[in-house]
């Protein structure tokens, strides 16, 4: 067709010339930078994490299998195999790390039996649900085994004659703390989910403790725990306890640390659960009310399912963070009396101070194993199914 020949030839030629002309270096660079934008944006974060978390993790594993000495201008490593771990788990430091074992009374044995039943029930539950895989069975059996081992040490050390080591104390802080914080936080959130004047005031006040430096909280509670000059003296006098020093008795000191932790982290549970409660559907509840449901029925069948996903996540987050506890016991009780309130992280630090660097790394690694074990089993086995995407 003649018309198509009338295409603006000079323009075509010009654009062809433009394309073949050398593009300035800067523009080419910009274009290629633009093409690889995703890579450029992601890589700094990945490299930083790799060099400050993954790489040190490998090095740490090696250090935990060695004896490290700082010498002038550097360091000296001597490979010692599993000696550091053996020392902690079965050797000299066993009493410090695991605890001193004593025969558990009937309370100990019955709670152990309870744990066995619970694990058996969970396993049976899994078995009956069908969908049994070989890997699922292996992982669950491993989880049960480790739980039984930890439970064994707990019932043997948490008796009057025994003495819990840093692992057991940390587990106590984690489970006692997270459990009580969750329950009280949930209760307060349910109360606060009602509509009333002054809600913003309560919300802001309840936000404060989790922002405060744990070091400050440690000192604060040291002042409050003082029975002779502290503000709660009238209360202690009333109870006949004015001359007891909380931080001198093992369980008193543990209670003081747990109260401090409770004070700081209950608000976190509260705020998250309050937001979850507020986002549940009003229509469902109204329909239930019209149908004559009681408060407990509504709570059991509507509220709990609605807040379950958020609850399970918030418990997981708190659990992971609680394993890292160090500043509060270090300030409040200095880990004492003896090692009664020493957490695993504090144990690692005290070994580091004594220049037992390999031992410190081994303690850290065992903590990592513990956190991973609890977080993974919680996320996979205990956390309700439907919250997993």
């Amino acid at each position, binding site marked *: 067709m003649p018309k198509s020949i009338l295409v603006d030839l000079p323009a075509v030629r010009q654009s062809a010339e433009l394309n073949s002309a050398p593009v300035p270096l800067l523009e080419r660079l910009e274009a290629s930078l633009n093409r690889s934008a995703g890579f450029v944006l992601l890589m700094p974060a990945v490299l930083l994490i790799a060099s400050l978390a993954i790489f040190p993790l490998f090095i740490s594993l090696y250090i935990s299998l060695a004896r490290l000495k700082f010498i002038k201008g550097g360091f000296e490593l001597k490979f010692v195999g599993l000696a550091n771990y053996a020392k902690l788990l079965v050797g000299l430091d066993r009493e410090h790390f695991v605890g001193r074992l004593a025969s558990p009374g009937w309370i100990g044995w019955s709670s152990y039996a309870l744990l066995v039943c619970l694990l058996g029930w969970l396993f049976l539950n899994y078995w009956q649900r069908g969908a049994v895989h070989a890997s699922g069975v292996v992982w669950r059996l491993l989880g049960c085994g480790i739980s039984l081992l930890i439970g064994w040490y707990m019932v043997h050390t948490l008796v009057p004659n025994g003495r819990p080591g840093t692992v057991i104390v940390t587990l106590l802080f984690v489970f006692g703390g997270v459990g009580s914080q969750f329950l009280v936080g949930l209760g307060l959130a349910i109360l606060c989910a009602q509509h009333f004047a002054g809600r913003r005031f309560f919300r802001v006040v309840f*936000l404060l403790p989790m922002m405060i430096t744990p070091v400050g909280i440690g000192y604060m509670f040291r002042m409050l725990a003082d029975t002779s000059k502290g503000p709660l003296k009238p209360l202690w006098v009333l109870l006949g306890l004015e001359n007891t020093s909380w931080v001198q008795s093992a369980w008193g000191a543990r209670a003081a640390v747990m109260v401090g932790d409770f004070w700081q982290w209950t608000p976190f549970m509260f705020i998250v659960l309050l937001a979850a409660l507020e986002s549940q559907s009003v229509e469902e509840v109204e329909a239930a009310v019209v149908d004559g449901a009681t408060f407990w029925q509504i709570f059991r069948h509507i509220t709990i399912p609605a807040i379950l996903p958020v609850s399970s996540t918030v418990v997981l987050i708190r659990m992971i963070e609680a394993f890292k506890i160090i500043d509060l016991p270090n300030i409040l009780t200095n880990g004492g009396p003896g090692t009664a309130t020493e957490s695993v992280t504090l144990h690692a630090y005290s070994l580091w101070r004594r220049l037992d660097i390999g031992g410190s790394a081994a303690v850290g690694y065992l903590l990592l194993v513990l956190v991973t074990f609890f977080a993974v089993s919680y996320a996979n086995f205990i956390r309700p199914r439907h919250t997993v995407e």
Partner: protein
Amino acid sequence: MKRTVFSPSRSGMILTYAILGLWAVIILFPLYWVAITSLKLPIAVFAGPFYVPFLDFQPSGHAWKYIFVDVRRDVFRPYANTVFVATVSSLLALLLGSSASYALARFVFRPKVGVIGLFIGCVSIAAFATYNGVPWIVAVAGAAASYILLFLGLARRFRKTLGNSDIAFWLISQRMLPPVVVVVPIYVMFQQIGLLDTLTALVIAYVAANLPIVVWLMRDYFESVPIELEECAAIDGATRYRILFSIVLPLAVPGLVSTFLFVLVFSWNEYLLSLFLTGARSQTLPLMVAGQNATRGPEWWYMSVLILIMILPVIGLAIALDRYIARGLLVGAIKG
């Protein structure tokens, strides 16, 4: 009036106020006690509990004067260190973390497992060689060269790939890592490159520690920004960076603010990393206050002033920006 789930009766309301009021007292009383202790003379602290200024005891500014005038220098330095490290590390973590989570939300990554393994292998060889006395420049150059050669030769053969969600999970799961596990090698690393007891070292460590939180919280905000806007901008010729910095980030400001607050508070309060990595020069505030344990143990009036100046900035932030904080918390919990 907004409809709410529970509509309480009158007596229920009174009970609610009573319980919440009690809890508010439990929270506020320790803070109040620290505040009035900072105004007490030693005699008023040791003579027993006094609760109300002017009524029970005569307030005095002596502790504040001591901290702000007499030992000004010792207090000011850790304070300035903390302000600097917390701000800079939070801004950097926000920059790196939000870039990464934007990249994960908008680009498709298919890294090959084999290539990652190759990279790790070459890095370990370089580290091992350095450790055994090879000059580090030679080791790094050798490892880089062998990585490039092997990459060119082998990259096509690897089949198994990872996806975006794997990368995101990997980044976020670093939050699970207790810092005490990695702090010893980090100490050795910083010692080798001469960064020990400097603010730079702290900033680097804090950025790495906070990156997972930023990625985790920001991912959701980026996924909620409509992609059409970005497509329009791309058609108009904007580069990817321009799109990120002039369209996406401005839209995600609420998320950025709440994430920034979290990271800032975490860095402000951080204890363990600074315990290991700082000495006298780069000491941060929590560490300085913790160190007073020995010298000022029973001198609660000075301690109270120190505690107050340490916690007042974060309390101020919490009161001013409580909405952002609550929102950030919820996003974190739901998306976790």
